[in-house]
């Protein structure tokens, strides 16, 4: 299930700016632990943001993205009170979806 994301969305002059702080380990699979064993890869592969039912951002993530990634994007439209849903899937089959209201 992962840890909850922090999402802020604000509408200004017809443009909605969404900021997301994802909480995820984002292991590349190239690091070794103290015993020399490889730390298994564990990263987000897909992240989708929806405004209501409409997809406004669809992205493929990979091991080069940092731990606890921060993501900000803007889209036209959206109004105060609308729902923004951000969801991700990772390479272990885990997924998480969080919701925020445009303010």
């Amino acid at each position, binding site marked *: 299930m992962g840890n909850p994301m*922090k999402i*802020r969305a604000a509408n200004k002059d017809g443009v909605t700016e969404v*900021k997301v*702080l994802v909480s995820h380990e984002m292991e590349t699979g190239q690091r070794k632990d103290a015993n020399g064993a490889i730390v298994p890869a564990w990263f987000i592969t897909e992240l989708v943001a929806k405004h209501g039912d409409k997809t406004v951002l669809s992205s493929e993530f990979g091991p080069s993205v940092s*731990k*606890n990634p*921060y993501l900000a994007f803007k889209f036209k439209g959206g109004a105060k009170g609308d729902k923004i849903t951000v969801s991700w899937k990772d390479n272990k089959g885990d997924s998480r979806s969080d919701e925020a209201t445009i303010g």
Partner: protein
Amino acid sequence: MSRFSKSILAVALGMSVFSSASAVDNFHGVGRQATPAEVKAWDIDVRPDFKGLPKGKGNVERGNELFEEKCASCHGSFGESNEVFTPLAGGTTKDDIKTGRVKGLSSGELPQRTTFTKVATISTVFDYIQRAMPWTAPKSLKPDEVYAILAYLLNLQEIVPADFELSDKNIADVQKLLPNRNGMTTDHGLWPGASAKKGGIGNGGVPDVKNVACMKNCKPEVQIGSTLPDYARTAHGELADQNRNFGPVRGTRTLGPEAAKKAADASTLDLATKSGCMACHGVKNKIVGPGFNEVVARYQGQPDAESRLIAKVKAGGQGVWGSIPMPPNAHIKDDDLKTLVQWILAGSK
């Protein structure tokens, strides 16, 4: 006794014997006593025991609004920004909140320290926000606003839930949840006053370092353990020229004594140019002052020539070589002066 020292004595007596009010009276005509309102405006610090904490309250939601408006431009919406300042939030775990010591600090897992991985007292954060934030308008936040922003930060750090309201009543409870609350030690000599045993905070001024000079088993002399073998000396050209020219370590002269002397003279010529000698003196010709060859000719065979010349160059002079004076050169270092004079007397080669 002069008037000045009398007045100092009076001040000293005033400080030690009389109350602070009469001490101020001793500065006749200088300033005035601060009014209670002025003292109140200045005395805004909040201490770890929450002395000085203003009454008020603020919730996470209000803090979010304020943070977005006043703080996010530098700190990022989630206090995550590393652009202007180091991040405010992040880097701690639920375990840290239990133990009161951020594990990442000692295990080296933390890629980046944040405010909440380090700070041990919540009062410090309150005081800092109240005193210094926002950067462009410090002290402009009302106590309720500081409480709200602090509540938002604590929520970002997952110390308090999203519906939390921070106030002067429950801030002491939050202190007990701070991730690095046990991370501060006071057993250090820099704390002023008495030691912790005697009611102070530090260790009474015992230095952290001992600084005991090691005077045992000293080596009687330096022994060179290894040198460049002859066949390899010139493999990389002149090593001395490839090393930094400051600090105690120089590369060895690998191209032999001839090259070494040439290089040393070249550097003395540089020194002479830098010191301004070459503006008036030529090596083999007169410019404004005598050429160095003329100087050598005049002082040849005089055993005290070096010390006399050093004194002359330093103080300047007139009349020995004509009416144009030589300016004093007190700005040149003594060592450099000596090098220059020896170089001139040796023929400026």
